[in-house]
């Protein structure tokens, strides 16, 4: 490995900086510290084969498994376009390994936009009007649509904030295994005891105690965005955004015919921006309902990542599934076993004459810990109030199970 000249080193640094910028625009957060680290890493490892160079940059820039794909695309485009790497290798090595892959792959939309910014035309966003009222109907057709929410008024935002503050979910104060200084605890804190006894030169030993620390458990929300739930989607998204703001660990998933993780989109401070980010990432608004498939995907890919540490799951769906089979029962059973408490929120329960006859609802009902009716879905305040009410499992679900039988 021959030493690089000053000029080659300068050009290498420049190109790595540009590469980092492209990654940043494509969605991988790369700070200036990472760029400095990348340069140090490349100098430490030296310029060898293309593969080594790839993995050197990968180890510094990629911090999550999901970013690997974007990084791969960006690397293929960036370092092949100008044939830079080959020139550099030609200068530093007497013979170049002829192993450079020549596959042409479709690069992702974002990466292309980031690199060729300003050259392409902007896509027109189409707004589709939904004319059919899809409430209380089921369909398993996949309808891909984009959604446009109205702006939130300041009054709505303020109401949301105050309602969420008053929200007390069941099992909201969970004891953890940590101990914290407590006046009337049961475990003696030796360290504080001895330190305080030093104040009197060891004459007095005044016992200090430790008690269990409590925390709010993490919340996972699974929200159904199919056609039958269209009216309530905005309200629920606003609710989820406010909860994400107020609590530390909230994960939100939207499902219809596909399952999308919108946790990061909802983390933005402004509710309009958060909802806009949601709409950008989800594609199957107001389409069909495939609850069993979505729950299966959730259980397989996400359950072990977000349900640990005793999470409470809020399942917000009307339970109407087109062809319910054993799978739905199996998946909801598995979900129930993996979380601390499963609360089902069903907007259909508003109607007095509601009877749980639909097969999907009958399948889900026995595996749910709490079944909450929502009497008034017009306001967020009402929603929070109904969530806060403590309902015991036996009373609520047995009533509905008996009615269905």
């Amino acid at each position: 490995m021959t030493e690089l000249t000053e000029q080659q080193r300068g050009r290498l640094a420049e190109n790595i900086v540009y590469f980092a910028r492209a990654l940043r625009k494509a969605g991988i957060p790369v700070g200036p510290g990472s760029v400095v680290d990348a340069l140090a890493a490349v100098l430490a490892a030296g310029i060898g084969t293309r593969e080594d160079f790839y993995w050197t940059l990968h180890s510094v820039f990629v911090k999550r498994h999901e970013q690997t794909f974007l990084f791969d695309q960006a690397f293929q485009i960036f370092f092949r376009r100008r044939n830079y790497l080959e020139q550099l290798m030609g200068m530093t090595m007497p013979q170049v390994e002829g192993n450079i892959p020549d596959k042409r792959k479709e690069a992702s939309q974002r990466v292309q936009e980031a690199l060729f910014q300003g050259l392409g035309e902007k896509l027109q966003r189409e707004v589709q009007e939904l004319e059919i009222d899809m409430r209380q109907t089921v369909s398993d057709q996949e309808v891909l649509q984009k959604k446009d929410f109205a702006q939130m008024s300041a009054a709505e935002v303020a109401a949301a904030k105050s309602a969420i503050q008053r929200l007390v979910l069941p099992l909201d104060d969970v004891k953890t295994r940590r101990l914290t200084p407590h006046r009337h605890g049961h475990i003696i804190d030796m360290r504080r005891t001895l330190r305080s006894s030093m104040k009197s030169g060891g004459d007095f030993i005044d016992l200090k105690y430790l008690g269990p620390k409590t925390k709010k458990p993490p919340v996972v929300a699974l929200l159904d965005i199919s056609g039958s739930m269209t009216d309530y989607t905005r309200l629920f998204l606003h609710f989820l955004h406010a909860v994400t703001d107020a609590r530390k660990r909230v994960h939100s998933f939207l499902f219809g015919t596909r399952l999308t993780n919108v946790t990061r989109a909802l983390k933005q401070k402004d509710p309009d921006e958060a909802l806009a980010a949601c709409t950008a990432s989800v594609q199957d608004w107001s389409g069909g309902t495939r609850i069993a498939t979505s729950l299966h995907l959730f259980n397989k890919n996400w359950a072990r990542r977000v349900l640990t540490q005793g999470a409470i799951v809020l399942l917000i769906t009307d339970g109407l599934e087109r062809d319910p089979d054993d799978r739905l029962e199996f998946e909801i059973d598995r979900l129930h076993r993996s979380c601390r408490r499963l609360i089902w929120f069903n907007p259909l329960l508003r109607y007095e004459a509601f009877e749980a006859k639909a097969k999907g609802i009958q399948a889900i009902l026995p595996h749910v810990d709490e079944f909450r009716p929502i009497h008034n879905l017009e306001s967020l305040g009402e929603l929070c109030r109904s969530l806060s009410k403590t309902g015991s499992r036996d009373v609520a679900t047995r009533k509905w199970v008996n009615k269905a039988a």
Partner: protein
Amino acid sequence: MATKISVPGSIDDTLKLLSKADYVGDRSLATVLFLALKMGRPLFLEGEAGVGKTEIAKVLSSTLGRKLIRLQCYEGLDVSAAVYEWNYAAQMIAIRLAEAEGGVDRDRLTHDVFSEQYLIKRPLLQALEPDTVGPPVLLIDELDRTDEAFEAFLLEVLADFQITIPEMGTVKAAEPPIVIITSNRTREIHDALKRRCLYHWVGYPDATRELKIVNAKVPGIGKKLAQEIVHFVQALRKEDLFKSPGVAETLDWAAALAELDAVALDPATVSDTLGVLLKYQDDIARIEGSKASELLNQVRADLRAAE
């Protein structure tokens, strides 16, 4: 007196170092490992359970001749279990003895009681101690099991490699230890900690590498059996299982079959020993019986075609 073995000087040297301890790794892992050793950064390994993340730390410590200090993380891990604790019983006896002697000088007593004699060192503090053979390998296992409070504390320690004991002073490491952090991704680790480290995702190996691993770790296994085992597990990973078998499970299964003196796989043996590979009842119910024979026939056909 043992001499200090220095860290490898290039990526090829790193691969050789790993193979010295029978660890078959791929080039990407060797690159990240080399950079972590050379740049002095912690190495953050993420991946499914049973792919060999903890093994790397053990391999490093045995090949470089360093001490391995292991901190197993769990929920509720706090400073007293991870860093240090005072030996309270001995301290109380010392106080009573001083009192019995009479003439207690408060400052001197405090100085005596809070000295290194009464300090119980736990893994993080042990890792900062100097060693003649070189800085130790600190393995922080399953960091995703602890909570954010411990992560914040760890971030501070990994930044400066110094720990402040209020009663005694600051302990600083002469040479920073080699830090390896593993995670099973049951919780997302905070970005601030990941930024300090070099990240690597350890995935399942491909057929050729897995075959090398089986041959290296289970010596004396028949060639045909090893090939069938590896291809069967590879086919199993393509199925829609709740938890795919990892490399550790493959090795366990190979050892079990070698114990049973099997020469080749047959459907009965596979169904009987499926519990070694799959750990969830739903997965076992789905695979055992006809599905296992179907996969086995496919594997045999592929191997025959490859010959």
